[in-house]
């Protein structure tokens, strides 16, 4: 009996770990793409929230979950474009532009939600995504059922990790992106448009952030709450640094965060006589500790935070 409970606990924990890592993986990959091209996108938290809200809204209205995910991606792209306009085209401070997008999106998400639903006493819900068991793999004892009975979006997130690695390291496009992020003058000299590359990276990155947000309202939960993102965007930014701007290492960071997040959920369920707030605090605290460990030897893209203005050189 004890063994059975233990196996169920581990399996449940593995499942929660994969679930909680999913939005972080999407957002981390999106942020890596942006930062590799030289733009820190602090709009991430707001873009995720807008993705979560619009995805929920469209699914609520149409009944189609995938249409919701698509909407979240498109909304993320639009906000990514706005970020590009402010920070790349106009060359405004990346810190401030990103925070502006987050504040604006946060207000807008809540405004639109209230506009559509008013202030209901019971939050409206949708029929969320169902988990899919992978054949064979989900039959592995103890860890299998948890790890391999997941949402399609979770599998998609994991699929995107090698895709992003190949894009960045093995393709011509990736070389262009990295050059723009490291040395835009060189990129410009060889005919790569710095503006266009950064804009595209912000747009695609925004789509990933939006989908990451939508996962929370369409799979992890079935409703939209104002604090649904709860700092996961900022955690993703920390994961980019933790992973040294590498998709795989970033995803490993996300899975560690997912483990801690899943663990705190499980421990709460076991009824320890400690406030659940202590558990909620742990992932954030350990993220900071992790940053302390890696920050000294972080290899930041050389042109991160630096707006590129060709005209300035010509006078």
């Amino acid at each position, binding site marked *: 009996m004890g063994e059975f409970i233990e196996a169920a606990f581990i399996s449940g924990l593995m499942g929660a770990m994969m679930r909680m890592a999913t939005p972080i993986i999407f957002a981390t990959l999106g942020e890596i793409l942006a930062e590799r091209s030289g733009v820190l996108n602090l709009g991430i938290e707001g873009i995720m929230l807008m993705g979560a809200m619009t995805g929920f809204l469209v699914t609520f209205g149409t009944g189609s979950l995938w249409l919701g995910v698509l909407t979240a991606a498109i909304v993320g792209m639009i906000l990514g474009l706005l970020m590009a306009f402010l920070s790349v085209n*106009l060359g405004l401070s990346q810190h401030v532009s990103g925070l502006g997008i987050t504040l604006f999106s946060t207000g807008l998400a809540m405004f639109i939600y209230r506009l559509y639903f008013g202030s209901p006493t019971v939050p409206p819900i949708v029929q969320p995504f169902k988990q899919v068991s992978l054949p064979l793999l989900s039959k592995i004892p103890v860890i299998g059922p948890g790890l391999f009975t997941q949402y399609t979006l979770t599998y998609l997130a994991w699929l995107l990790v090698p895709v992003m690695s190949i894009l960045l390291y093995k393709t011509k496009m990736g070389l262009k992106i990295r050059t723009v992020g490291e040395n835009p003058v060189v990129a410009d000299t060889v005919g790569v448009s710095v503006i266009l590359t950064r804009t595209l990276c912000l747009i695609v990155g925004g789509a990933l952030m939006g989908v990451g947000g939508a996962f929370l309202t369409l799979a992890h939960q079935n409703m939209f709450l104002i604090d649904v993102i709860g700092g996961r965007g900022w955690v993703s*930014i920390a994961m980019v640094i933790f992973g040294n701007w590498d998709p795989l290492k970033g995803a490993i960071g996300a899975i560690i965060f997912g483990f801690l997040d899943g663990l705190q959920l499980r421990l709460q369920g076991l009824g320890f006589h400690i406030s659940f*707030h202590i558990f909620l605090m742990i992932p954030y605290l350990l993220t900071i500790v992790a940053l302390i460990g890696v920050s000294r030897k972080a290899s930041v893209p050389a042109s991160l935070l630096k707006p590129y203005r060709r005209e300035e050189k010509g006078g």
Partner: protein
Amino acid sequence: MIRMRITKREPLPKWARVVIPIAAIITTLILSAIPILLAGGNLWKSYYYLFYGALGTRFNLLETFVKASPLLLTGLAVAFAFRAKFWNIGAEGQLLAGALAATVLGVSLGGIPGVLVLPVIIIGGFLAGGIWAAIPAILKTKLKVDDVVSTLLLNYVMIHMMGALLFGPLQQPGSSWPRSSAIIEAARYPILLTKSRFHLGILIALLAVLVIWFINKRTVFGYRSKAVGVNIRAAQFGGINTTAVILWTALVSGGLAGLAGVGELCALQYRLIMDISPGYGYSGIVIAMLGNLHPVGVLFSSLFFSVIIVGAHTMSRMTGVPTYIAEVIQGMALMIMLIFLLFTEYRIRVVRK
């Protein structure tokens, strides 16, 4: 093909620095028509109630000051930090730290002479906020941890720490809600004008404007802090101890945010609750930017925001436009201000190729 070219321009005259924020505010108010119309609100009625709600009666006007005081303090906190390029996005957590310290002191200081209670609480709240901001400053200077991320994450650490305390040692005995006992009478900020909530904290906030202006303009520390912000390497080369400057900047910045928390607790709530701050720390970022990081600018932008927030409630009640319109307007104001500020330094030309 049409292209935008951005080129540096001659510095604008001084009046432009006043005119541009005003132009940004007017543009924001005009563009606010879009969300109002989307919400099906009558445009003139909405604008009327926005301003009537904030300025229309003596009580409303004084409420606008009540709302402005935490915004002014968090705005100053962010502006002071950003000026030194210490990216303090953690004013929210520092505000909570201040409120937390004020609660602990406010419920337990019954034994000391009444006149000493408030000074002790104010200093305690300032220190609590300052220390909470000093942690990311130390992480930044000693361990190279990115300050944006650490200040942000510490907000969540603080809110959960507060939650744990409000469900634990600080919880009001017998209550099942996450709230503390009420602070003692002597710990309350005095109300300065009758039939209103115009309290001591508003004067403290206004005093802070003067102090920060004085530090920025008239002290060696203010000069060094700015030098670190303009070019940290040059500052280091010029013999400035940049680590110490960033640390002290953080301490003052966090302290100001902490005072905002003290004010909310000792003047309005009298007991700590989870939603003691509806995001004042984050609004402080917008206010600091809109005020161009200048203390007097921050004063005016906090008043503008306060008008929007207080007015939005009346507008919402009278026209049905959701109160979150205030947040939308805040976000828009920031972005418009950013674009307008660009015009002060750069000239944008549309060129045809």
